[in-house]
Structures are given as C-alpha cells and as structure tokens.
C-alpha cells in the first residue's frame, strides 16, 4: 500500500532525506506536545522560547532548500537569496503592521506609527491591500517571484553566468538594503517593521500562536522538500543538471536554457519569500539588515556545509550552523565570523559528514573550555576558544573516515551531552556575571 503513494516514490532513493523528513515530522508533533503537556520543570519540556528558536531555524532551512535547488541542481550561485527572503518578510510585516490598527503609540488607526512620525497624511498606494491576509500571502510569493523573474530574465537572456551572476545578485541585495534604509521609501527605514500585535486575530506573543507558527514552518519545509524532490526526480531535474554540468550541450540538444534557469530561479525565490514570511511573525521584526549581502553569503555556507545538491543537506546545514551560531554569538560574538569562515573553508576542503559533526562538536568543546574557565575562575579568552573550536572542526573533518568506522554511535550522543553542558555553563556563567 505504502509503495503506491507519491511520497514513497519521491523518497525511494533518498535514505538521508527520509531520515531528515521523519525527524522534522517528529519535531513538528513532539515539540508542541512537550511544550503544552509537560510541566515546565520537566527535563523534556520544550520552553516556548525554544519552540520559536526552532521555528526560526526551520525558516532558514526552507531558505537553504530554496538555494540548493538553484545552486545545487542548476549551478546558479545566487548570492542574493537574502533579498527574496527579506521581501517575503516585508510583505508579511506589512500585513502585521496593518493589524496593529490604533494600538500603536500614536493611536492612529489609518497609519503605522513610523508614517505618523514622518508626518505622512495618508497611506502610500503600495501599502493598500495589506490589511488583508490573503492579499499579503499572495504578495509574499508574488513580489520575490516577480523580482526574480525580471532579474533572471535580463541576466539569463544575456547569458550572464558564474561569478558575474553571483556578483550582480550581491549588488541586488545591497541595493535593496540601501533602499529600505531610506525613510522615504516607506517601509520604516532603519527600524523596519516591528511591534506587531496579532496575526489573523491571534496574539502574536501567545503560546498557541507560536506553536502554530512553528508547526507551519516545519510543515512548509516538508512540503518544499517534497516539491523539490518532485522536480529533481523528473526529467526537468535532469535537464537542470545538464545545464549545471554542460550548459552548451543542453542548448545544442534543443533545451531553452534560459527558460529552465528562469523557472527554477523564480520558484526558488518564491520559496525564499515564504521562508521570510514565516520568519517575521516568529522573530517579531523585519528591518533592512535582512538584505545585508553577508546574510546571503551565509546561506551559501549552510548549503555548502550540509552538502550541495542533496536537498536534505541544506536543511541539516542551516539548522546546524544556526544552532552553533546562536551558541557562539552568545559566548563570543566577535569570533563568529572567523568561525563561519573556518566552517566554509573546512566544508569546501573536506566535503564529508565529519564537517557537520565537527561544527557541532566545536560548540561542545568550546562550552567545556568555557565551563572549566568559569570553574577555575579565569577569564574566557575568545582566541583560545576559537582555537579549540576550529581545531575540533578540523580534526573531525580530516579524520572523519576513522571516526566513522570506530565510533559514530558514540559521537551521535555527544551533541545531547553538549546541550546539557551548555545549559549548565550558560546558567552558571550568567550567575557569575550577575
């Protein structure tokens, strides 16, 4: 019976994908159950804060999936996917702003606070319609989709490829960042859109809302994964790969390369937009920094780490890097960029699962170092911490084959141990500070 379902067929030759999707499904069900049913002091209780954090990671996973579709399968290295994510986020943010109504600081029912502050008398035309959720949802997909279409149409038709394409996508997201920074652009300038109150009438801070948003994020990752599988399993997917590997061969076989590129690029931008739209209500803010070119490069690192052209790797990469990032930006923010650079280099040199294990273990080793320093009462030296982190990463990646054969079962339990340790260290650390 199972054998006839579409999903079964899509995942038939994708063992890792089945594992990742099952894990996502389990998270989608178990996390809300644990949050709602278990008492807060239970070891297995997932606090609402963590639910939202996970939801945020899943939005990144969706974004990474979108990038892997174009980069991994069609060879289009977009360094501007943050722009599509940001636009989807802004579209959702605009809806959320309109929902505030007269509950803003200025109590103006017709205008968002920042417009009142700028002395605007009426809503600009491009804000109309956003009081409707349906309209906003359409815009979430349409705006990134249309931008990707126009941009891709120009670029692919003029056969801009490779690094030149990557550079102009960076320019695109940079230009958008500059535009959104302007107050007169009409999207809240520097501060962006924030202070949201509710979504579809539900309080955006409420436990239930957060859980539903988390579940929706997990659900969307699963749906997008299956959609991407459907595409890459079809002959269309093989055309994409042929464009990636031998573009002119594909043309001489009679495939309109620019149409295919445009198709995946637009689809990918739409997925990125949806990711942004799910992200904004969970983090409660969208501002121009989402368009920062560095963000777009980070997405590439997630995908490279997880394994380009695998789809499931994009999900793993996004979740692992962001999990580790939240640890480092807490413990040693000034070192994160170095760490990120290290991850990228090691992921490129040793493209194996050891890199992922290494990234996770580096956080564990760093917390052990931090824990010991705290216990013996000495300062945490960020350079030493970085040394330990990068060293762990390097050893895991380099000697992965050895570890794989000898001790993988043991290694997989380490992140759990690390998590517990980290909680202890972070709490003891903050106690020391206060």
């Amino acid at each position, binding site marked *: 019976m199972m054998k006839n379902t579409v999903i079964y067929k899509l995942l038939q030759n994708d063992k890792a994908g089945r594992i990742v999707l099952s894990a996502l499904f389990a998270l989608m069900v178990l996390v809300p159950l644990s949050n709602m049913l278990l008492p807060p002091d239970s070891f297995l209780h997932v606090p609402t804060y963590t639910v939202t954090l996970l939801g945020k990671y899943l939005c990144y996973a969706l974004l990474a999936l979108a990038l892997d579709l174009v980069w991994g399968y069609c060879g289009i290295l977009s360094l501007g996917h943050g722009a599509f994510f940001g636009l989807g986020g802004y579209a959702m943010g605009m809806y959320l702003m309109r929902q505030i109504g007269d509950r803003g600081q200025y109590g103006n029912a017709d205008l968002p606070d920042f417009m009142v502050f700028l002395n605007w008398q009426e809503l600009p035309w491009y804000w109309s319609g956003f009081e409707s959720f349906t309209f906003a949802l359409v815009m979430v997909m349409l705006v990134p989709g249309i931008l990707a279409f126009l941009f891709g149409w120009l670029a692919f038709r003029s056969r801009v490829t490779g690094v030149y394409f990557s550079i102009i996508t960076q320019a695109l997201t940079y230009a958008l960042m500059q535009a959104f920074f302007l107050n007169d652009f009409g999207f809240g300038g520097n501060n962006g859109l924030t202070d949201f109150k509710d979504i579809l009438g539900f309080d955006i801070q409420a436990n239930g809302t957060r859980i539903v948003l988390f579940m929706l994020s997990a659900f969307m990752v699963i749906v997008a994964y299956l959609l991407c599988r459907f*595409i890459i399993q*079809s*002959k*269309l997917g*093989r*055309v994409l*790969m*042929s464009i*990636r*590997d*031998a573009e*002119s*061969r594909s*043309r*001489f*076989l*009679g*495939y*309109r*390369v620019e*149409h*295919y590129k445009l*198709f995946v690029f637009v689809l990918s931008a739409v997925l990125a937009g949806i990711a942004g739209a799910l992200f904004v209500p969970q983090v409660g803010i969208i501002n121009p920094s989402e368009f920062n070119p560095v963000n777009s490069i980070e997405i590439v690192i997630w995908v490279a780490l997880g394994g380009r052209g695998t789809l499931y790797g994009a999900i793993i990469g996004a979740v692992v890097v962001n999990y580790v990032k939240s640890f480092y930006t807490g413990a040693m923010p000034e070192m994160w960029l170095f760490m990120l650079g290290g991850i990228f280099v090691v992921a490129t040199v040793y493209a194996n699962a050891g890199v992922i294990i290494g990234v996770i273990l580096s956080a564990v080793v760093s917390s052990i170092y931090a824990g010991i320093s705290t216990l013996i009462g000495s300062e945490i030296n960020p350079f030493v911490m970085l040394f330990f982190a990068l060293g762990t990463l390097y050893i895991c990646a380099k000697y992965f084959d050895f570890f794989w054969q000898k001790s993988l079962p043991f290694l997989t339990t380490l992140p759990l141990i690390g998590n517990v340790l980290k909680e202890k260290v972070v709490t003891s650390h903050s106690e020391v500070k206060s």
Partner: protein
Amino acid sequence: MSHTPINSPSRKITSILQLSGVTKSFDGFKAINNLSIDIKPGELRAIIGPNGAGKSTMMDIITGKTKPDTGEVTFKDVVDLTKHDEADIANMGIGRKFQKPTVIETLTIWQNLELALAGHRSILQTLFWRLNNDQAKRIDDVIALIGLAEKRDDLAANLSHGQKQWLEIGMLFIQEPEVLLVDEPAGGMTDTETMVTARLLKEISQRHSVIVVEHDMDFVRELDCKVTVLHEGSVLAEGSLDTVSSNPRVVEVYLGR
C-alpha cells in the same frame, strides 16, 4: 520557432545547408574568411584542414553559437540560421557533436540518451514526462548500437574518452536531426572503433545529411565521400579524397607536413 513552411512536401530542397561568403574575425584575426560551402540533402561530407583552419568555428556558426560578421547561412534553402539561437537551430533538426566529447557526467548513460531523445523540450513537458515503451526500447537499441549495454546505469563520468565519444554520437543519433555535424569523432578510439564509427556514420547518412570533421585520413578514406579542405578560414580544395590529396596546394599546407 520559424513559421516558414520548411517541411512543406511540395517544395524540392536543393541544398540542406548553404554557407555563402561567411566571414568571422576574432580580434581582427579572420578565423573564417569568405567561406562558401553547399551541402545537398542526404549528403555525407568530410571536412579536413590543419589545426586552426576554422573547422570548429564553422560548426559554431552553423549551430548558432557564433554569429558571423558577414555572409549567409541558409538551412533548407529558406531559413536564415544567423537569426536563430542554439536551441532553435537544434530543434529545427541540426545536431552537433563537440570536438571535446561533452556528455552529462553526473547522469547515467541511459539518462544521457533519455535527455537527448527527440521531442519534449518544454518545461511542462519535462516536468510531467513519462517514458513510454517505444521510447524505452529506442534508448535500449541505441545503447546496444554504441556498445554500452553493460554500462547503461553507470555514470557517464566513468566512461573512457572513446566511450564518451560513442555516447555523444548515440545522443546525436537519438536526437533524430536532419543534419549531423560531427567534430572529430574518432579521437580516443582504437583503429577498429574508428572504422566502426566511419561505417556507422555512412549508414546514418543514408537517411540524414552528415558533415564530419576529422584528421584521421584512414577514417576519411573509409567514409568514401566528397571532401572539403579548409585552410585559413576558406575552402582550399573540394572533391574526392584522391583529387584533393593530389592538389599541390593541399599537399603543401596540410598533407605534406
């Protein structure tokens, strides 16, 4: 797509492919210089010439990869190929094998042929494409023809140079073009394989027009067809292999070396 009725049965085609006065320069260097060539329907033509004579550039111009500076390239007497791009030209029925064998290395032999199989070039068609039995059989037949039956599910990356040549010829074949442009098919092949390739191309030319570029003289002799000698971007001599090889100019620039 062109709306010219290129396939109307009422019209008798005099030349399947005609280049007249074609010139193309790269940074002032004339790779193709006032080149005129005329290929009849169903003709098998060998093109020879020293390195840098412009043979591959000529194929680039016919297939739309390179636009000529001046001159005309006409398909079936009426279609001006310089106004079309690679995909259009491929879909009109001009297929090409590259000098450096180019197959999709991350796909299997079978998938490479499936990709080349005639028809189904639009996005929606490829997304919902299902192979039918006739098509599967056709792919299997071609795999047998190119001698790769045992490797049908191997990645093309694992093939030897000669086997990649075969695969690419197979892809060209299954694409069912009316004109086949074959750039140095015998590279990397053993002597026997070279002869088999020549015979295969001869057989194909019963039903299609074939233009072959090759350096291997035994191969050209085996083709037993009209030969065009290119030199510095234009035609130096044309005729049977024996005629051209006794031409003193040809001997000087090419054969004599």
